[in-house]
């Protein structure tokens, strides 16, 4: 099981993302986007492609846009190909923004991007922990998980989806994660449970096969128990909730 983790131009969560994959049993490496463009064939040696969080191109012209355009020009076909195989792709935070801008998720009309991630309703960067529930447990990434406690850290995490598309997203069961409140009910847009005002409390979307997951929260930052806020007051297992997502990738190939 091999994972390839993307880096370069301001992506900055590659180390901890690779670490998480390694702990659950993957081998893999971090690759600079320019090296991947030089030799895209190496994608064949990997089963998982991860686009971690960060600030590619400083979020200028919209978060994830510039990197998505670079991938579109240089790697698009290879990535589509990868997504159509029995392989997994995950985009976390900035990676999520990149996948959405590429249109790899939700990928219903298979052409242009259909969804946008816009600035948080608060207008602020939000670094805080949230609860999410798994809405699509058919995705290999999210199998057998009901809720997760994870941190978000973004300026542009509000899913904007045209109404008709939202209908088909729901019909096709492509909502991966949704923000919930302290009573474990949908946040209904209420801050800070829903940190960005996302439509239908959406925190993650998948493609139709469920093998591509674009999620705003950071599972790699909720990997160990000591990552969890106020861990000293809680009885905890060794790992935090983020571990489950990475472990699911392992199970998919096991």
């Amino acid at each position, binding site marked *: 099981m091999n994972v390839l983790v993307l*880096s*370069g*131009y*301001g992506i*900055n*969560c590659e*180390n*901890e993302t690779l*670490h998480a994959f390694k702990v659950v049993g993957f081998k893999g490496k971090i690759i*600079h986007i*320019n*090296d991947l463009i030089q030799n895209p064939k190496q994608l064949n040696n990997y089963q998982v492609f991860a686009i971690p*969080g*960060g*600030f590619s*191109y*400083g*979020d*200028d*012209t*919209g978060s994830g*846009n*510039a990197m998505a*355009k*670079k991938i*579109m*020009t240089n790697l698009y076909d290879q990535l589509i190909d990868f997504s159509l195989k029995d392989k997994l792709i995950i985009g976390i935070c900035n990676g999520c923004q990149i996948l959405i*801008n590429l249109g790899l998720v939700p990928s219903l009309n298979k052409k*242009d*991007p*259909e*969804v*946008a991630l*816009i*600035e*948080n*309703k*608060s*207008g*602020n*960067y*939000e*670094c*805080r922990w949230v609860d999410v529930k798994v809405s699509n447990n058919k995705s290999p990434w999210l199998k057998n998980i009901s809720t997760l406690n994870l*941190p978000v*850290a973004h300026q542009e995490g509000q899913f*904007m989806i*045209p109404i008709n598309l939202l209908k088909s997203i729901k019909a096709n069961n492509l909502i991966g994660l949704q923000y919930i409140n302290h009573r474990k009910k949908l946040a209904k847009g209420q801050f800070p449970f829903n940190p960005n005002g996302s439509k239908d409390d959406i925190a993650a979307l998948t493609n139709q096969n469920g093998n591509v997951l674009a999620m705003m929260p*950071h599972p*790699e*930052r909720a*990997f160990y128990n*000591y*990552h969890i*806020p*106020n861990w*000293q*007051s809680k009885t905890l297992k060794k790992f935090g909730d983020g571990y489950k997502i990475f472990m699911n990738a392992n199970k998919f190939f096991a």
Partner: protein
Amino acid sequence: MTNTIQILSIEKTGKESSLQKEHNNKSIKIIDGYFFSRNLDDQKFTKISKLISNDVSQTILTKKNVKKVLSSYSNFNWVVEIKFLPGVTDNIATTVKEIIKDNLNSSFKSFELGSTKIILIKGRKEDITKISKNEANPLIQTIKIYPFKQYLDNFKKNQFKIEKVKLPKKKYSKKEINLDISDHQLSLIGKLGIEENDKSRRGTLGLDLESLKVIRNYFSAIKRKPTDVEIETLAQTWSEHCKHKIFSAKIDDIQEGIFKKYIKGATEKIIQLRKDNFCVSLFTDNAGGIEFNKDWIICHKVETHNTPSALDPFGGAITGIVGVNRDCLGFGKGAKPIANTYAYYLADPNKKYQLYRQKNNKDPMLPANFIAKGIISGVRVGGNCSGIPTPQGNVYFDDRFAGKPLVFCGTVGIIPKKIKGKLSHKKKANPGDIILMAGGRVGKDGIHGATFSSEELDPNSPVSAVQIGDPITQKKMSDVIIRELRDENLYSSITDNGAGGLSSSIGEMAKESGGFIVNLEKVPLKYNGLYPWEIWVSESQERMTLAVPPANVKKVIKRFNARGVEATIIGKFIKKDKAIVKYNKTEILNLDMEFLHEGYPKLNLKTSFPKIKKEKKKIIKKSSLIDKLHKLLSSPNIVSKEFIATQYDHEVQATSIIKPLQGEGRVFGNATAIKPIFDDEKSIALSQAAYPQYAETNPYDMAGCSIDTAYKNLIVSGANSKKIAILDNFCWCSSDEPDRLYQLKEAAKACYDYAVAYQSPFISGKDSMFNDFKGFDKTGKSVKISIPPTLLISSIGVVDKISHLTKITPDDGDILLVLGNTCNELQDSVYSKIIGYEKSKNPVVNSKDALRIYRNFEKANKLGIINSAIGIDLGGIGIAVTKMAIASKKGLTFDLKLKNKISVDQFLFSETQSRILVSLKKNKLPNFKKIFKASDYTIIGKCTGSDVIEFKDNKKIMRGKISDFAKSYKQNIKGL
């Protein structure tokens, strides 16, 4: 054909809603504009606009649709167009150029573009003017206000104009400066700068008459005139900012100066006493390094960026944080930045100070809230974009920061002890090594930054001193260095380009080899037309200088280029002790290294005892205890800084272990911790403290309090007392006045005494000596506002085990105790400012008592006796207990049986140092008593788990709801 691409968001953006709210106007829309230096044909327009916009969320404005699209939002009638002045860093434009280059790599080369923010409103001209004042800074941006009709017209006629740097085409000929002139003429060179042929002056050099005379003597001895480049270089190298002349000067009877005697002296003494390997690299490098574990070194550095932040708060602060990140990159062979810290000392953002740098209400100082907001967002963008967590910080408000805000930015870095078998903290540029400049290009940014930050802020301060950091360029460069080049040992030395630019970085590194030869024409420029001296001293950001063995140069450059980073050979290091700079083969600088670095005249300073300005007695306002608690909790210096903590990504790198917001009730902590290595359970605890409020009364005790608090906070967090190091950042005022120097000497003396007492070494420090504002108030009266002397002590410590990390939240049934005795020390406290006081004193730290308590606390904590703990600081015990209750959402009850003839208010609000509030499980009390002697603690109450805090004073019971206290504590700071 068009020369602009303008994009707007279909739905209301967060920024738009906050503007609409702020200005109470629902008709405000923001457009992202890009102005091109040449026309785009339709095909290019379509291609480019598709590349830089989002089909789903945005609309691209065209000549055809603009009127219709905009009218669907409102009947706009005014427009403000905000764009950067020529030469100011425009990060968005850089990205757009890169996108175009990456994706359309043909046919579109020679163009310029600028990013522009266009705001449309429906309202009056006054409204748009007001908005523009809040959204733009005239020092770095042009602001054009015009009617909406004209905007549509501009669209139709391609009238949007980009501001280009237009420097006269000048042919450089070597400029020699005649120093055989009158003292008056000589001092004008120092004060106003070198005279150009057209009689204009270049801007202050910050050289005093004596220094200029030394320079004159040097050159008359070698029988030639100095060149302009030589004088500029000496001014940079000898600046207060670079040489710290005041700290190294003879002061009264202290021959070796206060730095050597008190700061370095303390560390030397401690190393001598401790005999361990804790201190690795001190004072000589860009940051100070200590041992983390057997394989890793951590380093820490804190810088200030005060003057630039007064002029351009966002730019100043972002430059401050990415600048100090480079200090880590330049530590040893290059440490990876793993945490940022911040501390801001600001004027009240809710007040209008109305200060002007020139008479007749000209050249106004920026409003206090503009400064505060700009600084907070500058560090946010710098830290977040760089992928460095920012867990630790604080903010303090006082009117005396109205003329100059203090912006402290710190970074912690980590580096393996050995790289390819060699000690990583040792570096040496060897003769023959190539000088390589990597990262950003050179422009006029920050010309005279080093010389100017050493001067008071007055009307002649050059505005070109402003820079804006570009975190992404730096991140790209940093990744190559830390991940690829360093671990292959491809270079022999590295340092950052900060104050003084190349003149400073190369000058410093050349000490390792002997000297250097630089060819300035090789330096890549942002735009043409820079004079050689400008290239040499420019402070353009995001650059590192590397010494690379010739055999590795090709490989290193190739590696940089493959990651989209520019790297250029600009000279070589030589063995001879000579500093030589050439420009197109003409030698324009040739100095002895010894003269360059040590030739400056040493100061001889005298101090005198200052008049002590005692705080006037204030009448105590009658109110209930609960009411007083609410007033203190909601006061700006105590109120929660959560709104900053949630803007600053403190989770990136997945190292956050003690977060800035603590407990279910999210209390803003005074210490935080990160766990930097996944497979080692050791953590790094961080804290900081400064007490400017105590400075005027007693600077010695002020410094004592700062050290004590910064040290104590780490002890409380669980750090190993043998592994705590501290950093000093002195921000002083009027340091040419004997009474200010007296305060400085006293504070430095305390630094020695307390550091040695705690055996906590200084590992790095910095000073900024002239934080004064000289200008005018709104009536035209001349005013001078000096900051109160501020000594920020930053502490960094190692926590050996996860189980040693403490929490601030007690559990039901816990007993609450105060460690340390409480005295009547209310003078200059938060309580005294808000409620008043009768007769009181400033806190004085008794290091012997403090140490006994700290050592015992450490012991008890390691044994698992302590259940929760919080350092007592501003607002005293009263605020500490309230914070515990808010954090845990658990009720507490107190029985105020007081000893020592102290009143309830004195007991609850006195800011006596060295005290810790702790909670224990009941059954741990016997073990606790075995460690602590009875006179070192007071049992004050217990945790009830109810929803109230209750104080019992004899028979009187006072009660307040935790949720109400939380409300007061979490109030917004007015003006922010």
